[in-house]
């Protein structure tokens, strides 16, 4: 082996790579340096900030603890991270176009994960989103509510309290080491949205009701590995689906499957705050083994003349003892409500249930703008 040859090859390649690296470093300093950029939010100096240009807007906002909902981790595939950019973002990129409607484009709505912070930006972010925070939590209690559903109670550590309106949801981050251990491993961050099932008065805790989805990434983790005493992080609260507390109309709540969670939060909150509003609560499940949050409601219906409770089990097998309704929930609503025109309605559950209930309620004279729903 000729040592000289070996050395000269290494020197040639090394030298060439070195020279190119040097050129690129200089170029990076002068071309790819965007300096300090000002990100103006709602013209409010309290939340506006300055940052080094070059990164994408979603991450720049996340660094400032402004959490825009996003499910794909900034790859431009989920289309959730929409933000109104009033100035400075340039024209709409081809990677954004498939997620933006024409109304979005007219309102300067953009995908924050695709926008690079290259110059000063002017954003408009709704106040609810600015209230979103990241919480470090301790898993305080895991309780099996039914054969495939768990109640997960999280104690908030930092910050120690959350202010939310019943019906809103939080995102639960799946820990990275679990994602990397999976076969095949997942490298991008994964978080999943769950409605808050607890009440605003318990400001130090957040409860989720999580049903095991076959092959679900997050639900599998929650059901098999998560243990009491573990630490997790959540962000929230998010969502336009929440209890309108400035009205005094009678309320219809309909929850199906694990859509019971926000309904639980809404109903419990109403009676915590000694509401004078009439509340009709419809819960649809398949079988007796799926039913939870039942005894509480039966007791409440016996105590409060304002509260009516209509559970229905639509997939009942023979041999189970059940004297209540056995129809699909929209048929139960149809039977129980004569006139819905003065009411306000909150729906949460699978899309097919929601569509059926909305059609039923519209027939009963409920105007569409007073139907609030959360499909999942």
């Amino acid at each position, binding site marked *: 082996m000729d040592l000289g*040859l070996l050395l*000269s*090859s290494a020197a*040639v*390649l090394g030298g*060439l*790579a070195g020279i*190119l*690296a040097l*050129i*690129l470093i200089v*170029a*990076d300093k002068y*071309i*790819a340096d965007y300096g300090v950029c000002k990100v103006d939010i709602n013209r409010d100096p309290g939340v506006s900030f300055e940052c080094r240009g070059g990164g994408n807007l979603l991450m720049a906002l996340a660094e400032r603890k402004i959490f825009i909902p996003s499910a794909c981790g900034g790859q431009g595939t989920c289309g959730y991270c929409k933000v109104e950019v009033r100035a400075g973002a*340039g*024209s709409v*990129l*081809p*990677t954004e176009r498939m997620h933006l409607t024409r109304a979005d484009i007219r309102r300067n709505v953009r995908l924050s994960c*695709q926008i*690079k912070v*290259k110059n000063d930006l002017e954003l408009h972010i709704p106040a609810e989103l600015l209230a979103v925070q990241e919480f470090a939590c301790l898993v305080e209690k895991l309780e099996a509510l039914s054969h495939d559903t768990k109640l997960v109670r999280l104690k908030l550590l930092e910050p120690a309290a959350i202010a939310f309106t019943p019906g809103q949801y939080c995102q639960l981050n799946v820990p990275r080491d679990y994602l990397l251990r999976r076969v095949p491993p997942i490298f991008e961050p994964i978080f999943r949205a769950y409605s808050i099932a607890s009440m605003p008065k318990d400001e130090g805790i957040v409860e989720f009701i999580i049903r095991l989805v076959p092959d679900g990434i997050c639900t599998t983790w929650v059901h098999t590995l998560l243990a009491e005493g573990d630490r997790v992080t959540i962000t929230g609260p998010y969502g336009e689906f929440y209890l309108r507390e400035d009205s005094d109309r009678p309320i219809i709540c309909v929850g199906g499957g694990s859509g019971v969670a926000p309904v639980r939060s809404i109903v419990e909150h109403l009676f915590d705050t000694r509401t004078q509003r009439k509340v009709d609560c419809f819960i649809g499940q398949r079988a007796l083994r799926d039913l939870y949050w039942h005894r509480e409601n039966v007791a409440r219906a016996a105590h409060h003349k304002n509260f009516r409770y209509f559970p229905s089990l639509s997939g009942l097998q023979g041999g189970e003892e059940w004297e209540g309704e056995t129809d699909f929930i929209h048929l139960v609503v149809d039977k129980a409500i004569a006139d819905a025109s003065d009411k306000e309605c909150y729906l949460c559950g699978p899309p097919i249930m929601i569509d059926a209930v909305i059609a039923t309620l519209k027939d009963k004279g409920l105007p569409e703008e007073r139907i609030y729903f959360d499909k999942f």
Partner: protein
Amino acid sequence: MPDVSPFVILFAAVFTNNILLVYFLGMCSFIAVSNTVPTALGLGAAVTFVSVLTAAAGRPVYHRVLVPLGLEYLQFIVFIVLIAGLVQFVEMVIERTSQTLHANLGIFLPLITVNCAILGLCLFMVSWSYGFLQSLAWGAGSGVGWFVAVVALAGLRQKIRFSKVPPALEGAGITIVVAGTMAMAFMGFAGMVAIR
């Protein structure tokens, strides 16, 4: 060094010895990025820039460094490193100047690194032992040739969008048929100019 004027080489590289339509190099991005004319213009310009600079830098590196040291067999890795460095530079410039073009080109911009048209023109240039000016003309001509071909195809594809294509040929099928027809037209010039 063959006795051919650099101007002849420049002309020949664009028309009679087009790197894409005669040698069939650089086909993947040719098919992938020829959806619209503006995108094709952008990628064509980027490829032209990289090919000129690669030719200009590659020839001295090969003849002044590799040949005297007897390291000609390192040519592949040396050219690839050179091309990679230049592409990185072009990407920085495009990202800075046009976010739209950057998003349109997407992954095909960094993929110029392994664009066989550019490595191919380097290898032709050294195996035909071109002088410096000839190499420069060959690099520029090949780049412009690729540019012309990709923009022409993009123009045709924009028109095809309004024509009735048999369902079996929609998309990639008709594109390859069109590219083949273009190649046949360019091959009509084959042998008109000797460049080696």
